[in-house]
């Protein structure tokens, strides 16, 4: 039962639904830990490529060197520094994922608002397009794009990832905004001639913000994993570029003699995923 109607006599209503305090602090701890992990990874991805050695520099005499203090993750089969390669790969994954998520978010939100606002044939056309995308598995769309341009260019990967993801934002924004636009509050603001900017700023964005943030953090995970999946099956980016999935594949032949090579990118993928998922607010604020 909701407390709100019963507590009308409360002189200073607090609003919102009080969650159990224990659960709330637990949620806060998880989010703080996730944020710290994510910040550490981002720091590594930003500082690593600047501070560490050139990841492409080969030294065949130091082939499959085990980890040492100077080289904490050892060297790979070409004698390249695994740590330096890892930093580059992490940066690539984060930047590409962030770019494609931002593009998908922008595209999906704008089309969603357009469909929710205009309705009619605009809505029908946009919905048709979005359903075509829903019908295809996301990875297939990225694969199609990767196959269109040979040589595994970053550009096609970016477009493919963004196209695979915009549909989610479109559908959520369209459904939510259609509901918000039909409320008396929006009708009242029309009667007050407050203009469409007010409706977006005061009615739609506050309502959508939380959901979009959650979707975006999930989208980052999906994009990073999709990228490394493609790298793993060797249709994504091509060597010598460093990419997390590609690094795992390349390390496979040496898993018995140099397990650190495969474990390092896997650990980064795992931490990225957990940290991004942990950032979400678990209780959905209505």
């Amino acid at each position, binding site marked *: *039962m909701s*407390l*709100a*109607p*019963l*507590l*009308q*006599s*409360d*002189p200073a*209503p*607090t*609003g919102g639904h*009080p969650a159990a305090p224990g659960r709330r602090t637990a949620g806060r701890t998880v989010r703080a830990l996730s944020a710290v992990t994510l910040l550490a990874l981002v720091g590594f991805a930003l500082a690593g490529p600047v501070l560490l050695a050139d990841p492409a520099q080969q030294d065949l005499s130091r082939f499959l060197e085990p980890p040492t203090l100077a080289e904490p993750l050892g060297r790979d089969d070409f004698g390249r520094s695994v740590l330096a390669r890892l930093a580059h790969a992490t940066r690539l994954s984060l930047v590409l994922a962030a770019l494609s998520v931002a593009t998908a978010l922008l595209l999906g939100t704008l089309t969603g608002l357009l469909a929710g606002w205009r309705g009619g044939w605009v809505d029908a056309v946009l919905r048709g397009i979005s359903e075509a995308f829903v019908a295809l598995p996301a990875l297939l769309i990225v694969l199609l794009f990767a196959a269109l341009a040979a040589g595994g260019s970053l550009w096609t990967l970016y477009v493919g990832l963004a196209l695979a993801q915009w549909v989610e934002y479109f559908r959520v924004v369209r459904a939510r905004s259609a509901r918000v636009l039909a*409320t*008396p*509050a929006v*009708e*009242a*603001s029309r*009667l*007050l*001639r*407050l*203009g469409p900017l*007010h409706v977006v700023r*005061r*009615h739609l964005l*506050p*309502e959508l913000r939380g959901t979009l943030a959650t979707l975006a953090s999930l989208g980052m995970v999906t994009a990073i994993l999709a990228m490394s999946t493609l790298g793993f099956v060797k249709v994504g980016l091509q060597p010598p570029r460093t990419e997390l999935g590609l690094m795992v594949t390349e390390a496979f032949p040496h898993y018995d003699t140099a397990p650190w090579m495969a474990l390092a990118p896997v650990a980064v993928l795992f931490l990225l995923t957990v940290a991004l998922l942990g950032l979400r607010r678990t209780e959905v604020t209505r």
Partner: protein
Amino acid sequence: MTTLTIDEVTVHHGATRLVDAVDLRLEAGVPLTVVGESGSGKSLLAHALMGTLPGELRVAGRMALGGTPYDLATRPGRGLWGSRLAMLPQEPSLALDPTMRVRPQVAEGASVRRPGSRAARRAADRALDGLGLADAAHAWPHQLSGGMAQRVAYAAATVGGVDVLIVDEPSKGLDEAAVDRIADLLTAHLARGGLLLTITHDLRLARRLGGELLVMQGARVVDRGPGRTLLDEPTHDYTRALVAAEPTRWKHEWMATTRDPGASPEPLVSASGVTKGYGATTLFRDLSLEIGTGERWALVGPSGVGKTTLGNALLGLAPVDHGEVRHHPALAPGRAQKLYQDPVLSFPRRVALGSALGDVLRRHGVDRKRPERLMESVGLAPDLLARRPDQLSGGELQRLAVVRAMLLRPALVFADEPTSRLDLLSQERTMDCLMTEVDASGCALVLVTHDHGLAAAVTDRQVTLGAQRGP
């Protein structure tokens, strides 16, 4: 003979006392009605009896039902649900399960072993038949009108054959005819030897039920006695204020204003031959109406006859099927404003009220002093603007909606049941504030209501809808 007595009930939330030492005694055949404004603790009292208060609230007190004592702190009500004790909740259309048809929903309350059994279904059918709802047995809750939902909820609450019926705000959102029907049912429950506790802010219903009356204010019982004496010759100050807040007894300055009917040569809004319907039902047909400057109109009629739709059509918010609605140039966009039945829904939900109001000021270049002056005149503290809509009471928020509507100096205000969710005192305050502004600015008013008393007190012209339609 069964009686229910309650001694020294208190309800606390932290250090705040929400219900303070209430004693009451229910006897078979004698209704007990608790009246008071919102926030006086009367609903909490009902929930304390039922054992349905949230865990954060601390309850203390003793209850005795037919000689058996119970400690209210242990929430004993739960064990008695359905067999001895039942509650008819507020807003039954929200209390019914939207995913269940009417008959199985009523059958769940039957005092048989399995709710799905034939005996339960038969009991449900009998209960529904008795209420004239046999046709609705297979309907979904969303297909019912407010009054029908109320009667279905009554059937579900009483099908188990309870002695004690607790009714929480049964008249909320219902028109007079529906309130009369539910009052008949409650009287019938008493006639069968049942016990009845009604929580309401509707004095008309309290008068109809008769019996004992309890007046609550600020968590305490301030007045008690036989209903008729209390309401007809109130002696306590608060009771007197409560009775004086009934629209039929209002005395305000703006009511005296005489309006010259032929003041304006051209009407603000003229509707000619307007027809509107949804699907197969026609709401109104061939209706013509002219609203002049400063006129006060009421659209009255039972729920669901299209009063709001007509108002929206007059404002140009809803298209009409046939006919024409013309606006005078004086009624330029922005000069027609609307007040909503649920003010919470008429403000952006997640934004501080100050920002929402600030947008209006900026957009239309209104002087900052004006809202401050208006808020002061309707008795709202400026610091309320830092809150979000759900953090204000309905009355406060509706008064703020009046302020917002008046900022643009409208020529016409359409008030869509602005006070139907408010108690009598808040209703009087809100209407007083609206009408003072309307009177001062000389704007026209279209008021939708199903309260004839309110319509008579506030307006001088009426359109009655739905006279030709059945229930």
